[in-house]
């Protein structure tokens, strides 16, 4: 199978890149629409079928291209491919004829950028794919063309360009320090360089814009509601993870202990998860709520990144857990977003089933046992036990995590509450329903067969948490439900007066 990789990876990146060419002939419009879900398939095959460790030399590409795959990137590639396939199916059903070809062009380009940056190892192509994804993403955000969409697009673009520039400066400084064009050499060079803090600051800020760090997240809640549903699903599911991947690949985790930066990230993570929850709850539109939920979830992941930065010993373990959590969040959040566009069928039984399938991924997000959320949360809890981490804020991690869990469930409940008001009843276009169902299935069922590993933190059988763990997962959810009921009652009283 070794020889197949280069062809497969070229196909994975090439197919979506060349797909927009179909837009030249208006006759191919129908074919373009149905080809949407097929685009990520080669990438999916690459992620699932082949085992990582291969390398593809492209000497003529930019400053000497090198594409490779390792354990971490494989997870991200898998997430991206899965999510884009599912969203693709959904999009076929969802799309109106208005500006269809333009949508497909930008869809293809963004997908190519997203896939490319997961496989790229040399700085040139990584940054190229990153920029391609960002600018093409703009096309998806402003697709509707309403005033609000173009405003959101403008904010997205301004912040994205600022982020890009920060990344460019950071990468430049790092590559100058490392005197090489490969990402793999950067962490070690950054650790040793005289301008370490400047580089780290730039990289964190640059990728932070994409990953939704607090104070850099403003475009997220604006962009998601206006973007078409499949686009916002992909936006929050896969594209945010690109920022995360940027951190994981460039920042010097294993080299030296960076207590300072670790602390900063933890504070940011905490702020992100709780602050986003507070804001999210007050939102009226379901997609806005979900946007804030993404920011809050990313806050949690940032916690783990901060921990990894602070304690370089535990870094490798934490990285794989971060990847696992990102995978779980991507899939769950994707299905939630797709559900926002679903309409309720006629029959009571079918209506109940639909509601059930909507709530379960949400609950899994909050850590419902037997779901990927539980596993992710447990793994996170185990990895962040303070006795193994020796740095200042280690003690605060577990309370923050519980607060995070509570916040997540609150947001999910708020989402469900707002959804009841917004969902209209009627027949779902077949492909739309299929896309949404596929997302739910993948998030709940297929998750267990994916090639993640929990480094032995959670004892097998992983999908059946131990008794004490069930309680650890359950009590934050109970608190959240209690708070929700309290809020419901308070709102009732206010309405009567």
């Amino acid at each position: 199978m070794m020889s197949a990789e280069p062809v497969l990876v070229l196909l994975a990146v090439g197919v979506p890149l060349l797909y927009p060419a179909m837009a030249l002939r208006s006759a191919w419009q129908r074919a373009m629409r149905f080809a949407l879900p097929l685009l990520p398939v080669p990438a999916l095959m690459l992620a699932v079928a082949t085992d990582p460790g291969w390398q593809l030399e492209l000497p003529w590409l930019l400053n000497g291209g090198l594409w490779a795959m390792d354990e971490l990137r494989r997870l991200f590639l898998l997430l991206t491919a899965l999510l884009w396939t599912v969203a693709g199916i959904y999009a076929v059903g969802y799309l109106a004829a208005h500006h269809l070809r333009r949508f497909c062009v930008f869809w293809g380009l963004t997908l190519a950028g997203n896939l490319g940056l997961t496989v790229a190892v040399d700085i040139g192509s990584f940054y190229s794919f990153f920029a391609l994804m960002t600018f093409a993403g703009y096309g998806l955000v402003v697709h509707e063309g309403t005033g609000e969409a173009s405003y959101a697009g403008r904010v997205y673009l301004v912040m994205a360009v600022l982020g890009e520039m920060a990344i460019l400066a950071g990468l430049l400084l790092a590559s100058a320090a490392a005197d090489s064009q490969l990402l793999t050499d950067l962490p070690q060079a950054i650790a040793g360089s005289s301008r370490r803090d400047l580089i780290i600051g730039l990289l964190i800020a640059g990728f932070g814009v994409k990953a939704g760090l607090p104070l850099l997240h403003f475009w997220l809640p604006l962009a998601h509601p206006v973007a078409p549903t499949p686009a916002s699903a992909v936006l929050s599911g896969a594209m945010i993870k690109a920022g995360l991947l940027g951190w994981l690949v460039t920042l010097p985790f294993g080299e030296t202990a960076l207590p300072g930066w670790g602390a900063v990230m933890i504070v940011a993570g905490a702020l992100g998860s709780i602050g986003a929850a507070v804001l999210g709850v007050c939102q009226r539109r379901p997609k806005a709520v979900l946007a804030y939920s993404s920011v809050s979830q990313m806050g949690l992941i940032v916690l783990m990144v901060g921990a990894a930065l602070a304690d370089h010993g535990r870094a490798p373990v934490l990285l794989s857990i971060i990847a696992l959590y990102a995978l779980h969040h991507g899939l769950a959040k994707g299905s939630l977003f797709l559900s926002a566009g679903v309409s309720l069928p006629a029959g009571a039984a079918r209506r109940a089933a639909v509601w059930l399938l909507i709530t379960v991924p949400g609950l899994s997000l909050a850590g419902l046992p037997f779901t990927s959320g539980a596993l992710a949360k447990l793994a996170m809890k185990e990895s962040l036990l303070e006795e193994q981490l020796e740095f200042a804020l280690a003690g605060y991690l577990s309370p923050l995590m519980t607060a995070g869990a509570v916040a997540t469930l609150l947001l999910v409940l708020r989402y469900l509450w707002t959804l009841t008001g917004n969902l209209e009843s009627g027949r779902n276009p077949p492909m739309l329903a299929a896309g949404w169902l596929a997302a739910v299935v993948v998030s709940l069922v297929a998750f267990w067969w994916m090639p993640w590993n929990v480094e032995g933190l959670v004892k097998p059988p992983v999908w059946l948490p131990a008794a004490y763990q069930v309680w650890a997962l359950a009590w934050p959810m109970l608190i959240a439900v209690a708070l929700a009921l309290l809020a419901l009652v308070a709102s009732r009283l206010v309405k009567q007066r």
Partner: protein
Amino acid sequence: MTLTAWIPLFALMTSMIASVVIFALPEKGYRLRTGVNLGAALVKLALVVVMVWGVFRGVDYGLSFTMVPGVTFVLRADAFSLMFAGLSSVLWLLTTIYAVGYLEDSPNRSRFFGFFSLCVASTMGIALAGNLFTFFLFYEMLTLSTYPLVVHRGTEKALKAGRTYVIYTLTGGAVLLLAIAWLHGVAGDLPFREGGHFTDADPDIQGSLILIFILLVAGLGVKAAIFPLHGWLPQAMVAPAPVSALLHAVAVVKAGAFGIVRVVHDIYGVEASAALGLLAPLAWLAAFTILYASVRALWQRDLKRRLAFSTVSQVSYIILGISLFGPVAAVGGLVHLLHQGIMKITLFFCAGNYAETLGIHRIDEMDGAGRRMPGTSLAFTIGAFGMIGAPPLAGFITKWTMGSGALAANMDWVIAVLVASSLLNAAYFLPVLHRLWFREPAAGWPHERRWGRLETSAWLFWPPLLTAVMTVMVGVLASLPFSPLSWAELIVLREYSS
């Protein structure tokens, strides 16, 4: 006259002869004129390719004879000159095709194409010049042959722009002549030599060397549109699109930058100019021009004036590149000479298309042009993204190389300049793209013209697309042996090794 001496001269003479022939053609000799034009362009391109292959293998093309007692007329094709010659001959071919379509039924076309090929002959002369004297000879010929093109329309505005253009360039030429004469007086006839002449200049002439350098940069700065001397470029935008495309984005502006690079690299030598403390102020001036021009571009409402200011800022990249004392930065500067040419000519072609097909000149008239002219707008988008420096296009390669070069020369502030200017570029290009693709068109176009199947006439449609593809290929395939980046590395390698 051996063959190696014959080829550079003939490369120069092809367009000279073409211009004479075209002048003699009657106005309605349309087919013959286009034939002569394209034939000359192809022949020239072939000769340049032969020379490129020759120089790559180390063949030395040279020709010299004493023109005025004490000064020799030298033509020499070294690596750097072929880079510029290559650029101008390729882009001239495309612009000729474009110009044939653009000037469909306007008067005085024989006059136009005559001066057009004369101008390219002088550009080729500038590229192949072997010493400052020959360089100056073609430098002034360029001024003369571009004036009729700038005032081609004959309207009052065009003539006023022509007047400003002449005042600027001729004064610059006079200053340059003063400097060259003084240099000739101080150090005799200096051929361009890799590594320069003044590495160990004796102290007493150092004072005058500095003054001469300032005068040289001032004289060349007029055409390179460095800050205080850039006034003529935006005004010269009144010229027809092919003129502003080839001249003010590629030939004239690049001649100035090319001259400065020659002075720093081949006359003074990089070490000497650094020792004399000349590079730092030059770098500051170039940086200031980059930022100033980008800021000015923000407020321009007319599309071509905005592109003109963007050219002013982009050309200073080249100067910034070579004034950062380091091989990698120099590579960045030199490669930008080519990249900016390709990208900017795409933008000007598209601007010309919009003006010619839809009659729109101002930016706020461009709403929804993307739907009506998707091909041209796609090219415009690629060009714009290239200018912003978005990878994987040509602009990114320059910015990346220059950035790492600046860091190697530990000039950190250059990174800030590069980032700031990319932001400014984005600030004045992205709104245009937004209007192009995401805005609904206004009621009707000012005056629309139909050309059957294609969105605009074939002559106007293909060149911008071709240059857009070149922008992408030059960016993506940057490390190919004959790509601009590796050719720039070859130049700098020879420059810094001697």
